[in-house]
């Protein structure tokens, strides 16, 4: 069956070795693999940086939600530079300010606080995905 629904593209931070980057990716995985697999597509920031055609086409043809690990906002900037539209940008630091009880630590493996923060952020992203899917999920 051909899936004609537009998917929301999720683009997390690619910062390797950074706690907040790891939180952004864990949140993205949870949304795309567990929470909203039918409505979302994960696009690796590194592919956009490399100019991968499929990745560029995905962000150019679908609304994007970015999850940045720091104020450099690489994910948001790269989606825009790739011709995409950022429907909503999230920053892990802002999420932490909203959920101070979940202090993230660790890099390869997040501590419990980091995992909970990623989950809380994933729920916020999923809510935006739901809004976007309601607003224009069908292709014309």
């Amino acid at each position: 069956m051909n899936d004609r629904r537009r998917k929301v593209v999720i683009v997390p931070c690619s910062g390797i070795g950074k706690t907040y980057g790891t939180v952004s990716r864990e949140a993205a995985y949870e949304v795309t693999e567990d929470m909203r697999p039918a409505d979302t597509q994960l696009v690796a920031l590194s592919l956009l940086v490399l100019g991968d055609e499929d990745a560029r086409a995905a962000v150019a043809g679908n609304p994007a939600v970015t999850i940045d690990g720091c104020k450099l906002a690489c994910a948001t900037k790269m989606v825009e530079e790739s011709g995409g539209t950022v429907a909503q940008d999230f920053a892990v630091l802002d999420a932490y300010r909203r959920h101070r009880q979940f202090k993230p630590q660790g890099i390869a493996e997040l501590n419990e606080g980091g995992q909970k923060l990623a989950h809380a952020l994933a729920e916020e992203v999923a809510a935006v995905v739901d809004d976007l899917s309601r607003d224009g999920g069908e292709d014309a």
Partner: protein
Amino acid sequence: MPEFLELTVDKFTFRTATDRYYNSEGVWALTEGNRVRIGLSDFLQQRSGDVAFAEVKPEGTVLALGDEVAMIETIKADVSLPSPVAGKVAEVNSSMDITPEVINQDPYGEGWLAVIEADDWESDRARLLDAQAYFALVQEQAEEEMKKL
């Protein structure tokens, strides 16, 4: 507007305001009569990273020189900030509760932490670094950081 000494290391540029004094940890002190406004140097805020939370000792707190006047939690670490002056906390920047990122955005201006009623500013000042001396320390510390990369 203060003037600045600027140091560029790799992709980073660190500014040191010339109109104030610094302790070696990078907390600046700017006199306003018998009151002293304090905050983080540009080098310290960049080195510490994006600030998530800032907790400044409340008004009325009595501080000895070097006592912790604030704690900032950044994306990298929790950083304890020693007071560059002894005295009583007279005013706390209310932005610290709501928008502590102002420390990163404007460390020498809107990102100030507190105002201290100094017990003996002249005595404390003698223990602080002037802008040139602090700038030299920043150069030294920045070069040390580069060697770790």
